[in-house]
Protein backbone atom coordinates (compact mmCIF):
# COMPACT_ATOMS: atom_id res chain seq x y z
CA UNK A 1 0.00 0.00 0.00
CA UNK A 2 1.36 3.40 -0.89
CA UNK A 3 1.52 5.63 2.15
CA UNK A 4 2.49 9.15 1.32
CA UNK A 5 4.66 10.58 4.08
CA UNK A 6 4.34 14.24 4.90
CA UNK A 7 7.69 15.89 4.42
CA UNK A 8 8.82 17.94 7.37
CA UNK A 9 9.49 21.30 5.81
CA UNK A 10 9.99 24.14 8.22
CA UNK A 11 10.94 26.61 5.50
CA UNK A 12 9.02 29.87 5.51
CA UNK A 13 8.92 32.36 2.67
CA UNK A 14 11.50 34.85 3.97
CA UNK A 15 10.27 37.83 1.98
CA UNK A 16 6.63 37.32 3.03
CA UNK A 17 7.55 36.63 6.65
CA UNK A 18 9.87 39.61 6.99
CA UNK A 19 7.27 41.82 5.27
CA UNK A 20 4.57 40.66 7.67
CA UNK A 21 6.76 41.14 10.73
CA UNK A 22 7.72 44.66 9.67
CA UNK A 23 4.04 45.44 9.14
CA UNK A 24 3.29 43.91 12.55
CA UNK A 25 5.96 46.03 14.27
CA UNK A 26 5.04 49.25 12.46
CA UNK A 27 1.35 48.74 13.21
CA UNK A 28 1.95 47.96 16.87
CA UNK A 29 4.29 50.90 17.52
CA UNK A 30 1.96 53.30 15.75
CA UNK A 31 -1.06 52.06 17.70
CA UNK A 32 0.68 52.33 21.02
CA UNK A 33 2.19 55.73 20.29
CA UNK A 34 5.83 54.66 20.41
CA UNK A 35 8.53 55.53 17.89
CA UNK A 36 11.45 53.86 19.64
CA UNK A 37 12.43 50.33 20.59
CA UNK A 38 14.98 48.81 22.88
CA UNK A 39 16.19 45.24 22.95
CA UNK A 40 18.91 43.17 24.51
CA UNK A 41 21.58 42.27 21.98
CA UNK A 42 23.55 39.23 23.06
CA UNK A 43 25.53 38.61 19.91
CA UNK A 44 23.35 35.61 19.11
CA UNK A 45 21.13 34.98 16.14
CA UNK A 46 17.73 35.63 17.78
CA UNK A 47 18.50 39.13 18.98
CA UNK A 48 20.30 39.84 15.69
CA UNK A 49 17.10 39.02 13.80
CA UNK A 50 15.01 41.02 16.29
CA UNK A 51 17.31 44.02 15.86
CA UNK A 52 17.34 43.75 12.07
CA UNK A 53 13.52 43.66 11.98
CA UNK A 54 13.25 46.60 14.38
CA UNK A 55 15.65 48.65 12.26
CA UNK A 56 13.68 47.80 9.10
CA UNK A 57 10.41 48.77 10.77
CA UNK A 58 11.41 51.85 12.78
CA UNK A 59 14.72 53.07 11.33
CA UNK A 60 18.14 52.61 12.92
CA UNK A 61 17.89 55.92 14.82
CA UNK A 62 14.87 54.57 16.67
CA UNK A 63 16.44 51.34 17.87
CA UNK A 64 18.71 50.98 20.88
CA UNK A 65 20.49 47.75 21.66
CA UNK A 66 21.71 46.97 25.14
CA UNK A 67 24.69 44.66 25.51
CA UNK A 68 24.47 43.29 29.03
CA UNK A 69 27.27 40.85 29.73
CA UNK A 70 27.58 39.10 33.09
CA UNK A 71 30.92 38.32 34.77
CA UNK A 72 31.26 34.96 33.07
CA UNK A 73 30.06 35.99 29.62
CA UNK A 74 32.34 35.24 26.71
CA UNK A 75 33.98 38.47 25.39
CA UNK A 76 33.43 37.11 21.88
CA UNK A 77 29.66 37.56 22.41
CA UNK A 78 30.10 41.29 22.97
CA UNK A 79 32.26 41.48 19.84
CA UNK A 80 29.45 39.81 17.87
CA UNK A 81 26.88 42.21 19.34
CA UNK A 82 29.05 45.14 18.22
CA UNK A 83 29.35 43.61 14.77
CA UNK A 84 25.58 43.33 14.49
CA UNK A 85 25.01 46.89 15.70
CA UNK A 86 27.53 48.19 13.17
CA UNK A 87 25.94 46.13 10.40
CA UNK A 88 22.40 47.45 10.98
CA UNK A 89 23.51 50.89 12.15
CA UNK A 90 21.77 51.07 15.52
CA UNK A 91 23.24 52.37 18.74
CA UNK A 92 24.65 49.70 21.08
CA UNK A 93 24.97 50.64 24.73
CA UNK A 94 27.12 48.61 27.08
CA UNK A 95 25.26 47.96 30.32
CA UNK A 96 26.99 45.09 32.17
CA UNK A 97 24.95 43.29 34.80
CA UNK A 98 27.82 41.54 36.60
CA UNK A 99 28.02 44.09 39.42
CA UNK A 100 24.24 43.99 39.89
CA UNK A 101 24.34 40.24 40.33
CA UNK A 102 27.32 40.20 42.68
CA UNK A 103 25.76 42.97 44.81
CA UNK A 104 22.50 41.02 44.87
CA UNK A 105 24.08 37.79 46.08
CA UNK A 106 26.51 39.70 48.26
CA UNK A 107 29.06 36.94 48.72
CA UNK A 108 26.49 34.19 49.44
CA UNK A 109 28.01 30.76 49.06
CA UNK A 110 26.54 27.96 47.01
CA UNK A 111 24.65 30.04 44.45
CA UNK A 112 24.27 27.57 41.61
CA UNK A 113 24.21 28.19 37.89
CA UNK A 114 20.41 28.30 37.67
CA UNK A 115 20.08 31.02 40.32
CA UNK A 116 22.92 32.99 38.72
CA UNK A 117 21.34 32.58 35.29
CA UNK A 118 17.91 33.68 36.50
CA UNK A 119 19.42 36.68 38.28
CA UNK A 120 21.29 37.70 35.12
CA UNK A 121 18.13 37.37 33.01
CA UNK A 122 16.11 39.42 35.51
CA UNK A 123 18.83 42.05 35.88
CA UNK A 124 18.75 42.45 32.10
CA UNK A 125 14.98 42.72 32.20
CA UNK A 126 15.30 45.54 34.76
CA UNK A 127 17.79 47.37 32.56
CA UNK A 128 15.55 47.05 29.50
CA UNK A 129 12.37 48.20 31.21
CA UNK A 130 14.19 51.02 32.96
CA UNK A 131 15.48 52.16 29.57
CA UNK A 132 11.96 51.74 28.21
CA UNK A 133 10.56 54.15 30.79
CA UNK A 134 13.38 56.66 30.52
CA UNK A 135 13.36 56.84 26.73
CA UNK A 136 9.72 55.98 25.95
CA UNK A 137 10.84 52.91 24.02
CA UNK A 138 9.02 49.59 23.79
CA UNK A 139 10.96 46.48 24.79
CA UNK A 140 11.23 43.99 21.94
CA UNK A 141 11.51 40.39 23.10
CA UNK A 142 13.44 37.82 21.11
CA UNK A 143 12.47 34.45 22.56
CA UNK A 144 11.80 32.04 19.71
CA UNK A 145 9.03 29.44 19.45
CA UNK A 146 11.32 26.55 20.39
CA UNK A 147 12.39 28.26 23.61
CA UNK A 148 8.86 29.37 24.41
CA UNK A 149 7.47 25.86 23.97
CA UNK A 150 10.24 24.17 25.93
CA UNK A 151 10.16 26.81 28.64
CA UNK A 152 13.84 27.49 28.02
CA UNK A 153 13.86 30.99 29.40
CA UNK A 154 13.52 32.85 32.69
CA UNK A 155 10.03 33.86 33.76
CA UNK A 156 9.94 37.64 34.09
CA UNK A 157 13.53 37.59 32.85
CA UNK A 158 14.34 37.16 29.18
CA UNK A 159 10.71 36.12 28.58
CA UNK A 160 9.50 39.57 29.65
CA UNK A 161 8.91 42.05 26.85
CA UNK A 162 6.30 44.37 25.37
CA UNK A 163 6.18 42.75 21.97
CA UNK A 164 7.86 39.77 20.36
CA UNK A 165 8.09 39.59 16.58
CA UNK A 166 9.87 36.22 16.40
CA UNK A 167 8.05 34.12 19.00
CA UNK A 168 6.15 32.11 16.38
CA UNK A 169 9.30 31.04 14.55
CA UNK A 170 11.29 27.94 15.46
CA UNK A 171 15.03 28.30 15.94
CA UNK A 172 15.74 26.72 12.56
CA UNK A 173 13.37 29.21 10.94
CA UNK A 174 15.12 32.08 12.73
CA UNK A 175 18.39 30.90 11.18
CA UNK A 176 16.75 30.94 7.77
CA UNK A 177 15.45 34.50 8.26
CA UNK A 178 18.81 35.58 9.68
CA UNK A 179 20.48 34.54 6.50
CA UNK A 180 17.89 36.45 4.45
CA UNK A 181 18.44 39.55 6.61
CA UNK A 182 22.20 39.39 6.13
CA UNK A 183 23.21 38.34 9.65
CA UNK A 184 26.87 37.23 9.43
CA UNK A 185 27.33 33.46 8.96
CA UNK A 186 29.52 33.15 12.03
CA UNK A 187 26.65 34.48 14.19
CA UNK A 188 24.13 32.13 12.55
CA UNK A 189 26.37 29.12 12.84
CA UNK A 190 27.82 29.48 16.32
CA UNK A 191 26.32 27.15 18.95
CA UNK A 192 23.34 28.87 20.62
CA UNK A 193 24.13 29.77 24.20
CA UNK A 194 22.58 31.72 27.08
CA UNK A 195 26.23 32.62 27.80
CA UNK A 196 25.88 32.17 31.54
CA UNK A 197 29.07 30.25 32.18
CA UNK A 198 32.09 29.35 30.05
CA UNK A 199 31.34 26.68 27.48
CA UNK A 200 27.58 26.63 28.13
CA UNK A 201 25.45 25.78 25.09
CA UNK A 202 21.66 25.45 24.83
CA UNK A 203 21.93 22.13 23.04
CA UNK A 204 24.40 20.80 25.62
CA UNK A 205 22.00 21.70 28.41
CA UNK A 206 18.87 20.46 26.70
CA UNK A 207 20.45 17.25 25.45
CA UNK A 208 19.22 17.50 21.87
CA UNK A 209 19.76 19.78 18.90
CA UNK A 210 17.40 22.54 17.82
CA UNK A 211 17.14 20.90 14.43
CA UNK A 212 15.88 17.63 15.95
CA UNK A 213 13.49 19.21 18.40
CA UNK A 214 12.09 21.70 15.89
CA UNK A 215 11.09 18.86 13.59
CA UNK A 216 9.42 17.09 16.50
CA UNK A 217 7.69 20.23 17.79
CA UNK A 218 6.44 21.07 14.32
CA UNK A 219 4.73 17.69 13.93
CA UNK A 220 3.53 17.60 17.55
CA UNK A 221 2.24 21.17 17.91
CA UNK A 222 1.57 22.49 14.42
CA UNK A 223 0.41 19.25 12.80
CA UNK A 224 -1.20 17.54 15.85
CA UNK A 225 0.64 14.23 15.43
CA UNK A 226 -0.13 11.62 18.11
CA UNK A 227 2.57 9.87 20.15
CA UNK A 228 2.20 6.76 17.95
CA UNK A 229 2.39 8.77 14.74
CA UNK A 230 5.54 10.48 16.01
CA UNK A 231 7.23 7.18 16.85
CA UNK A 232 6.29 5.90 13.40
CA UNK A 233 8.06 8.93 11.98
CA UNK A 234 11.20 7.73 13.76
CA UNK A 235 11.27 9.89 16.90
CA UNK A 236 12.49 7.95 19.95
CA UNK A 237 9.77 7.52 22.61
CA UNK A 238 12.13 8.83 25.33
CA UNK A 239 12.81 11.97 23.33
CA UNK A 240 9.11 12.60 22.72
CA UNK A 241 8.30 12.10 26.42
CA UNK A 242 11.08 14.45 27.48
CA UNK A 243 9.81 17.17 25.16
CA UNK A 244 6.18 16.66 26.27
CA UNK A 245 7.33 17.01 29.89
CA UNK A 246 9.21 20.21 29.11
CA UNK A 247 6.17 21.70 27.39
CA UNK A 248 3.63 20.78 30.06
CA UNK A 249 5.80 21.70 33.02
CA UNK A 250 6.54 25.14 31.58
CA UNK A 251 2.99 26.15 30.67
CA UNK A 252 2.99 28.59 33.61
CA UNK A 253 5.73 30.57 31.88
CA UNK A 254 3.39 31.15 28.96
CA UNK A 255 0.48 32.32 31.09
CA UNK A 256 -0.48 34.99 33.56
CA UNK A 257 -0.22 33.82 37.18
CA UNK A 258 -3.26 31.81 38.26
CA UNK A 259 -5.76 34.02 40.03
CA UNK A 260 -8.30 32.55 42.47
CA UNK A 261 -11.75 33.04 41.01
CA UNK A 262 -14.17 34.84 43.34
CA UNK A 263 -16.09 37.56 41.54
CA UNK A 264 -18.26 37.50 38.43
CA UNK A 265 -15.48 38.82 36.24
CA UNK A 266 -11.90 37.92 37.01
CA UNK A 267 -8.65 39.16 35.50
CA UNK A 268 -7.04 36.39 33.47
CA UNK A 269 -10.15 34.17 33.55
CA UNK A 270 -13.18 35.90 32.11
CA UNK A 271 -12.24 39.51 31.57
CA UNK A 272 -12.23 39.24 27.81
CA UNK A 273 -10.69 42.54 26.80
CA UNK A 274 -8.27 42.97 23.93
CA UNK A 275 -5.06 44.70 24.91
CA UNK A 276 -5.44 46.58 21.63
CA UNK A 277 -8.78 48.09 22.64
CA UNK A 278 -9.06 51.70 21.48
CA UNK A 279 -6.04 51.47 19.18
Amino acid at each position, binding site marked *: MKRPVKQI*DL*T*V*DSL*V*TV*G*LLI*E*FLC*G*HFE*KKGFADAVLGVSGGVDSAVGAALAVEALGADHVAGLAMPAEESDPASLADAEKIAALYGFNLLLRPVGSVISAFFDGSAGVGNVRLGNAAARARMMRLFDYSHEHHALVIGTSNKTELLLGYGTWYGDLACSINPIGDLYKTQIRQLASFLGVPDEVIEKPPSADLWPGQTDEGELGFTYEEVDRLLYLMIDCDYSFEALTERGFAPGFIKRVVDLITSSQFKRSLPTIAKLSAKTVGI*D*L*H*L*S*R*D*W*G*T
Partner: protein
Amino acid sequence: MRRLNIAIDQMAPRLGDIATNVAAHRKSIAWARRQKADLLVFPELSLTGYMVMGMVSHVGLAPDDLVLTELARSAGPLGVILGFVERADDGRFYNAAAFLKDGAVRAVQRKMFLPNYGMFDEKRFFAEGDRLAPFDTPWGRTGILICYDALQPAVAYLHEQAGAQLIVTISASPARGIGPEGAMTGREIFRIAHLAHSRLLGLPTVFVNRVGTEEGSTFWGGSQVLDPQGETLCELPEYEPAREVCEIDLEATARTHTRFPHLKEGRPDFILQELWRLCMGPHPPLSSPWSTIP
Protein backbone atom coordinates in the same frame (compact mmCIF):
# COMPACT_ATOMS: atom_id res chain seq x y z
CA MET B 1 -24.46 47.29 -21.21
CA ARG B 2 -25.54 47.08 -17.59
CA ARG B 3 -22.63 47.85 -15.34
CA LEU B 4 -21.92 48.02 -11.68
CA ASN B 5 -19.12 50.30 -10.59
CA ILE B 6 -17.91 48.71 -7.45
CA ALA B 7 -15.54 50.29 -4.96
CA ILE B 8 -13.68 48.20 -2.40
CA ASP B 9 -11.82 49.58 0.60
CA GLN B 10 -9.56 47.28 2.62
CA MET B 11 -9.08 49.53 5.59
CA ALA B 12 -7.73 48.88 9.09
CA PRO B 13 -10.39 49.80 11.65
CA ARG B 14 -9.36 51.08 15.05
CA LEU B 15 -10.45 48.54 17.65
CA GLY B 16 -13.44 49.75 19.66
CA ASP B 17 -13.25 53.33 18.38
CA ILE B 18 -16.47 53.86 16.45
CA ALA B 19 -16.01 57.62 16.08
CA THR B 20 -12.65 57.23 14.34
CA ASN B 21 -13.97 54.42 12.17
CA VAL B 22 -17.06 56.41 11.19
CA ALA B 23 -14.76 59.25 10.09
CA ALA B 24 -12.76 56.79 7.97
CA HIS B 25 -15.98 55.44 6.43
CA ARG B 26 -17.19 58.96 5.63
CA LYS B 27 -13.91 59.77 3.93
CA SER B 28 -14.11 56.63 1.86
CA ILE B 29 -17.76 57.26 1.00
CA ALA B 30 -16.87 60.73 -0.27
CA TRP B 31 -14.06 59.21 -2.34
CA ALA B 32 -16.34 56.51 -3.79
CA ARG B 33 -18.96 59.10 -4.73
CA ARG B 34 -16.31 61.15 -6.54
CA GLN B 35 -15.32 57.98 -8.38
CA LYS B 36 -18.96 57.52 -9.46
CA ALA B 37 -19.15 54.15 -7.75
CA ASP B 38 -22.54 52.47 -7.33
CA LEU B 39 -21.53 50.29 -4.40
CA LEU B 40 -18.76 50.60 -1.81
CA VAL B 41 -17.76 47.57 0.26
CA PHE B 42 -15.90 47.66 3.58
CA PRO B 43 -14.50 44.61 5.46
CA GLU B 44 -16.02 42.60 8.32
CA LEU B 45 -16.63 44.60 11.52
CA SER B 46 -15.30 47.71 9.79
CA LEU B 47 -17.01 50.01 12.31
CA THR B 48 -15.53 48.32 15.37
CA GLY B 49 -12.46 46.22 14.57
CA TYR B 50 -12.41 42.45 14.94
CA MET B 51 -11.29 41.55 18.48
CA VAL B 52 -14.24 43.16 20.25
CA MET B 53 -14.53 40.12 22.55
CA GLY B 54 -16.26 40.97 25.85
CA MET B 55 -16.85 44.56 24.76
CA VAL B 56 -19.67 43.77 22.31
CA SER B 57 -22.20 45.62 24.44
CA HIS B 58 -20.05 48.76 24.27
CA VAL B 59 -19.98 48.88 20.48
CA GLY B 60 -23.26 47.17 19.50
CA LEU B 61 -25.61 49.29 17.39
CA ALA B 62 -29.27 48.76 16.59
CA PRO B 63 -29.81 48.84 12.82
CA ASP B 64 -31.74 52.12 13.20
CA ASP B 65 -28.97 53.74 15.26
CA LEU B 66 -28.09 57.28 14.24
CA VAL B 67 -24.49 56.23 13.54
CA LEU B 68 -25.71 54.04 10.69
CA THR B 69 -28.47 56.28 9.40
CA GLU B 70 -26.15 59.28 9.29
CA LEU B 71 -23.58 57.28 7.37
CA ALA B 72 -26.40 56.24 5.03
CA ARG B 73 -27.36 59.88 4.56
CA SER B 74 -23.79 60.82 3.71
CA ALA B 75 -23.73 58.01 1.13
CA GLY B 76 -26.89 59.21 -0.62
CA PRO B 77 -27.42 57.16 -3.78
CA LEU B 78 -24.19 55.21 -3.23
CA GLY B 79 -24.82 51.72 -1.86
CA VAL B 80 -22.58 50.84 1.09
CA ILE B 81 -21.90 47.48 2.69
CA LEU B 82 -20.11 47.70 6.03
CA GLY B 83 -19.49 45.48 9.03
CA PHE B 84 -20.82 46.26 12.50
CA VAL B 85 -21.87 44.69 15.78
CA GLU B 86 -25.64 44.48 15.72
CA ARG B 87 -27.48 44.94 18.99
CA ALA B 88 -30.77 43.07 18.60
CA ASP B 89 -33.97 43.98 20.45
CA ASP B 90 -33.79 40.78 22.45
CA GLY B 91 -30.35 41.69 23.82
CA ARG B 92 -28.31 39.41 21.59
CA PHE B 93 -25.33 40.66 19.62
CA TYR B 94 -24.49 39.66 16.07
CA ASN B 95 -21.46 40.01 13.85
CA ALA B 96 -23.38 41.62 11.00
CA ALA B 97 -23.23 43.54 7.74
CA ALA B 98 -25.46 46.47 6.88
CA PHE B 99 -26.47 47.60 3.42
CA LEU B 100 -27.03 51.35 3.29
CA LYS B 101 -28.64 53.20 0.43
CA ASP B 102 -30.64 56.36 -0.14
CA GLY B 103 -30.39 57.55 3.41
CA ALA B 104 -31.33 54.40 5.31
CA VAL B 105 -30.21 50.94 6.36
CA ARG B 106 -31.91 48.76 3.74
CA ALA B 107 -30.75 45.33 4.82
CA VAL B 108 -28.83 43.53 7.55
CA GLN B 109 -27.15 40.18 7.10
CA ARG B 110 -25.99 38.43 10.24
CA LYS B 111 -23.00 36.09 10.18
CA MET B 112 -24.35 32.55 10.03
CA PHE B 113 -21.24 30.53 10.84
CA LEU B 114 -19.15 31.73 13.75
CA PRO B 115 -15.65 30.23 13.88
CA ASN B 116 -14.96 28.81 17.30
CA TYR B 117 -11.74 26.88 17.03
CA GLY B 118 -8.03 27.60 17.32
CA MET B 119 -7.56 31.35 17.56
CA PHE B 120 -11.28 32.07 17.04
CA ASP B 121 -13.79 32.51 19.85
CA GLU B 122 -16.76 34.18 18.18
CA LYS B 123 -19.53 32.01 19.65
CA ARG B 124 -18.65 33.22 23.10
CA PHE B 125 -19.49 36.80 22.21
CA PHE B 126 -21.92 36.67 19.28
CA ALA B 127 -25.16 34.89 18.52
CA GLU B 128 -25.42 32.98 15.24
CA GLY B 129 -27.56 34.42 12.49
CA ASP B 130 -30.48 32.22 11.53
CA ARG B 131 -31.67 33.73 8.29
CA LEU B 132 -29.86 34.12 5.02
CA ALA B 133 -31.34 37.21 3.48
CA PRO B 134 -30.16 38.30 0.05
CA PHE B 135 -31.62 41.71 -0.73
CA ASP B 136 -32.66 43.54 -3.87
CA THR B 137 -30.65 46.39 -5.27
CA PRO B 138 -30.69 48.31 -8.57
CA TRP B 139 -27.94 45.98 -9.85
CA GLY B 140 -29.71 42.79 -8.85
CA ARG B 141 -30.20 40.67 -5.77
CA THR B 142 -27.12 40.66 -3.57
CA GLY B 143 -26.04 38.08 -1.01
CA ILE B 144 -23.52 38.81 1.73
CA LEU B 145 -21.19 36.25 3.29
CA ILE B 146 -19.27 37.24 6.39
CA CYS B 147 -15.80 35.68 6.50
CA TYR B 148 -16.27 32.07 7.72
CA ASP B 149 -19.67 31.92 5.94
CA ALA B 150 -17.65 31.89 2.72
CA LEU B 151 -15.82 28.74 3.81
CA GLN B 152 -19.07 26.80 4.31
CA PRO B 153 -19.83 25.65 0.76
CA ALA B 154 -23.62 25.60 1.24
CA VAL B 155 -24.02 29.28 2.04
CA ALA B 156 -23.03 30.80 -1.30
CA TYR B 157 -25.14 28.11 -2.99
CA LEU B 158 -28.16 29.14 -0.91
CA HIS B 159 -27.68 32.77 -1.89
CA GLU B 160 -27.51 31.74 -5.53
CA GLN B 161 -30.63 29.59 -5.32
CA ALA B 162 -32.40 32.51 -3.66
CA GLY B 163 -31.62 34.54 -6.76
CA ALA B 164 -28.47 36.43 -5.81
CA GLN B 165 -26.75 38.02 -8.80
CA LEU B 166 -23.79 39.26 -6.81
CA ILE B 167 -21.99 37.58 -3.91
CA VAL B 168 -20.15 39.89 -1.53
CA THR B 169 -17.80 38.42 1.07
CA ILE B 170 -16.50 40.69 3.78
CA SER B 171 -13.82 39.36 6.07
CA ALA B 172 -11.21 39.86 8.76
CA SER B 173 -8.93 37.00 7.83
CA PRO B 174 -5.63 36.89 9.72
CA ALA B 175 -2.43 35.70 8.04
CA ARG B 176 -1.53 32.25 9.31
CA GLY B 177 0.13 29.08 8.15
CA ILE B 178 3.05 30.78 6.41
CA GLY B 179 5.16 28.23 4.59
CA PRO B 180 7.70 28.07 1.80
CA GLU B 181 7.46 29.97 -1.48
CA GLY B 182 4.65 32.34 -0.62
CA ALA B 183 2.40 29.67 0.89
CA MET B 184 -0.11 30.99 3.44
CA THR B 185 -3.02 28.74 4.30
CA GLY B 186 -5.23 31.62 5.47
CA ARG B 187 -5.05 33.17 2.01
CA GLU B 188 -5.24 29.92 0.06
CA ILE B 189 -8.50 28.81 1.63
CA PHE B 190 -10.23 32.12 0.86
CA ARG B 191 -8.82 32.28 -2.65
CA ILE B 192 -10.17 28.77 -3.32
CA ALA B 193 -13.59 29.62 -1.87
CA HIS B 194 -13.85 32.93 -3.69
CA LEU B 195 -12.85 31.42 -7.01
CA ALA B 196 -15.22 28.50 -6.46
CA HIS B 197 -18.15 30.85 -5.81
CA SER B 198 -17.43 32.69 -9.02
CA ARG B 199 -16.71 29.66 -11.21
CA LEU B 200 -19.23 27.19 -9.82
CA LEU B 201 -22.11 29.62 -9.43
CA GLY B 202 -21.23 31.73 -12.47
CA LEU B 203 -21.63 34.98 -10.56
CA PRO B 204 -19.52 38.06 -10.03
CA THR B 205 -18.01 37.92 -6.57
CA VAL B 206 -16.44 40.50 -4.31
CA PHE B 207 -14.06 39.73 -1.45
CA VAL B 208 -12.99 42.53 0.88
CA ASN B 209 -10.54 41.58 3.62
CA ARG B 210 -9.19 44.05 6.16
CA VAL B 211 -5.56 44.90 6.91
CA GLY B 212 -3.81 46.06 10.08
CA THR B 213 -2.95 44.19 13.26
CA GLU B 214 -4.85 43.23 16.40
CA GLU B 215 -3.72 41.04 19.28
CA GLY B 216 -0.66 39.81 17.37
CA SER B 217 -2.64 38.87 14.26
CA THR B 218 -1.92 40.62 10.99
CA PHE B 219 -4.82 40.76 8.54
CA TRP B 220 -3.65 40.16 5.01
CA GLY B 221 -5.95 42.21 2.76
CA GLY B 222 -5.62 41.00 -0.82
CA SER B 223 -9.23 41.97 -1.66
CA GLN B 224 -10.52 40.94 -5.06
CA VAL B 225 -13.37 41.33 -7.51
CA LEU B 226 -13.96 38.38 -9.85
CA ASP B 227 -16.20 38.19 -12.89
CA PRO B 228 -18.61 35.23 -13.37
CA GLN B 229 -15.84 33.19 -14.94
CA GLY B 230 -13.38 33.72 -12.13
CA GLU B 231 -11.31 36.30 -13.99
CA THR B 232 -9.83 38.95 -11.74
CA LEU B 233 -11.32 42.39 -12.36
CA CYS B 234 -9.48 44.06 -9.54
CA GLU B 235 -7.04 42.98 -6.86
CA LEU B 236 -5.67 45.01 -3.98
CA PRO B 237 -2.20 44.54 -2.49
CA GLU B 238 -1.63 42.44 0.60
CA TYR B 239 -1.03 43.84 4.10
CA GLU B 240 -1.59 47.51 3.30
CA PRO B 241 -4.64 49.75 3.24
CA ALA B 242 -5.90 50.27 -0.30
CA ARG B 243 -9.04 51.02 -2.23
CA GLU B 244 -10.04 50.86 -5.84
CA VAL B 245 -13.03 51.05 -8.14
CA CYS B 246 -13.70 48.60 -10.92
CA GLU B 247 -16.49 47.81 -13.29
CA ILE B 248 -18.54 44.63 -13.29
CA ASP B 249 -20.36 43.83 -16.54
CA LEU B 250 -23.69 42.58 -15.19
CA GLU B 251 -24.65 41.04 -18.51
CA ALA B 252 -21.70 38.66 -18.35
CA THR B 253 -23.63 36.57 -15.81
CA ALA B 254 -26.36 35.66 -18.29
CA ARG B 255 -23.76 34.88 -20.96
CA THR B 256 -21.91 32.61 -18.53
CA HIS B 257 -25.13 30.84 -17.59
CA THR B 258 -25.86 29.89 -21.20
CA ARG B 259 -22.66 27.85 -21.13
CA PHE B 260 -22.84 26.64 -17.54
CA PRO B 261 -26.39 26.91 -16.19
CA HIS B 262 -25.67 26.18 -12.57
CA LEU B 263 -28.65 28.06 -11.19
CA LYS B 264 -31.12 26.16 -13.38
CA GLU B 265 -29.60 22.83 -12.43
CA GLY B 266 -28.94 23.46 -8.76
CA ARG B 267 -31.84 21.17 -7.59
CA PRO B 268 -32.61 22.69 -4.18
CA ASP B 269 -35.45 20.16 -3.77
CA PHE B 270 -32.99 17.29 -3.99
CA ILE B 271 -30.57 19.00 -1.60
CA LEU B 272 -33.43 19.59 0.82
CA GLN B 273 -34.46 15.94 0.60
CA GLU B 274 -30.92 14.82 1.43
CA LEU B 275 -30.63 17.29 4.27
CA TRP B 276 -33.97 16.10 5.56
CA ARG B 277 -32.64 12.56 5.55
CA LEU B 278 -29.48 13.65 7.40
CA CYS B 279 -31.23 15.75 10.01
CA MET B 280 -34.66 14.22 10.46
CA GLY B 281 -34.24 10.46 10.05
CA PRO B 282 -34.00 7.63 7.56
CA HIS B 283 -37.36 7.92 5.79
CA PRO B 284 -37.57 11.13 3.85
CA PRO B 285 -40.61 11.73 1.73
CA LEU B 286 -39.09 11.19 -1.68
CA SER B 287 -40.97 13.66 -3.76
CA SER B 288 -41.86 16.49 -1.49
CA PRO B 289 -40.59 16.83 2.06
CA TRP B 290 -43.33 19.36 2.75
CA SER B 291 -46.01 16.68 2.44
CA THR B 292 -45.18 15.28 5.86
CA ILE B 293 -45.65 18.58 7.60
CA PRO B 294 -49.23 18.68 8.87
